[in-house]
């Protein structure tokens, strides 16, 4: 049973560029959330997708956008990258209306130079 998988594992970009991160949820899960984790901090909620729609959003600018596909996989897009966007981006999944446990992937380490 595959867990939450994310790609790529590491990414280096320069300021102003755009980036797309990908996530496949755990088998049987239909809801995907994205979190940003700065070095030495706890993860911060970006947004949650269910039924291909953004259902909740944290305190992140519109430069952060996402998408969920019919197979429940998801993408996180960040435009006009800033140095401060350097962080570990975590994808997490769960079953809507089911157990509240949230399962995380290993993340994508994004470095913005």
């Amino acid at each position, binding site marked *: 049973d595959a867990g939450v998988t994310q790609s790529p594992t590491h990414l280096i970009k320069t300021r102003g560029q755009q980036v797309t991160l990908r996530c496949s949820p755990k088998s049987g899960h239909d*809801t995907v959330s994205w979190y940003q984790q700065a070095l*030495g901090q*706890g*993860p911060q909620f970006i947004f*949650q997708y269910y039924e291909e729609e953004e259902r909740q959003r944290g305190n992140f600018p519109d430069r952060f956008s996402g998408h969920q596909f019919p197979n429940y996989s998801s993408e996180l897009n960040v435009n006009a990258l800033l140095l401060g966007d350097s962080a570990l981006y975590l994808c997490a999944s769960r079953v809507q209306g089911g157990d*509240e446990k*949230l399962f995380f992937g290993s993340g994508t380490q994004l470095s913005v130079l």
Partner: protein
Amino acid sequence: GESVGLHLPTLSVQEGDNSIINCAYSNSASDYFIWYKQESGKGPQFIIDIRSNMDKRQGQRVTVLLNKTVKHLSLQIAATQPGDSAVYFCAENINWAYSGAGSYQLTFGKGTKLSVIP
């Protein structure tokens, strides 16, 4: 400020001893709490959870205690092992009624680094 925080940023314990990691939360509307373990280079790993209608929940070698009166959460690890060395996060969820899709937005604290001395 953050809704969830930890009293101790670092904790060193001798192998075989019990560990207690504490967490304070400030939002009385939170009704679900989770403890995660994060090892270097990995994503957070679920340890144990508890709903607000419970005071205590036990797992394998771990126990979570919830004191709603003082808004305090703790994680107890029995017979701590070197493999328990990691950063531990508590997180809370506020169960807002939302659009029929359910609300789920975990708020994490900064974490406590647990180091086990062999």
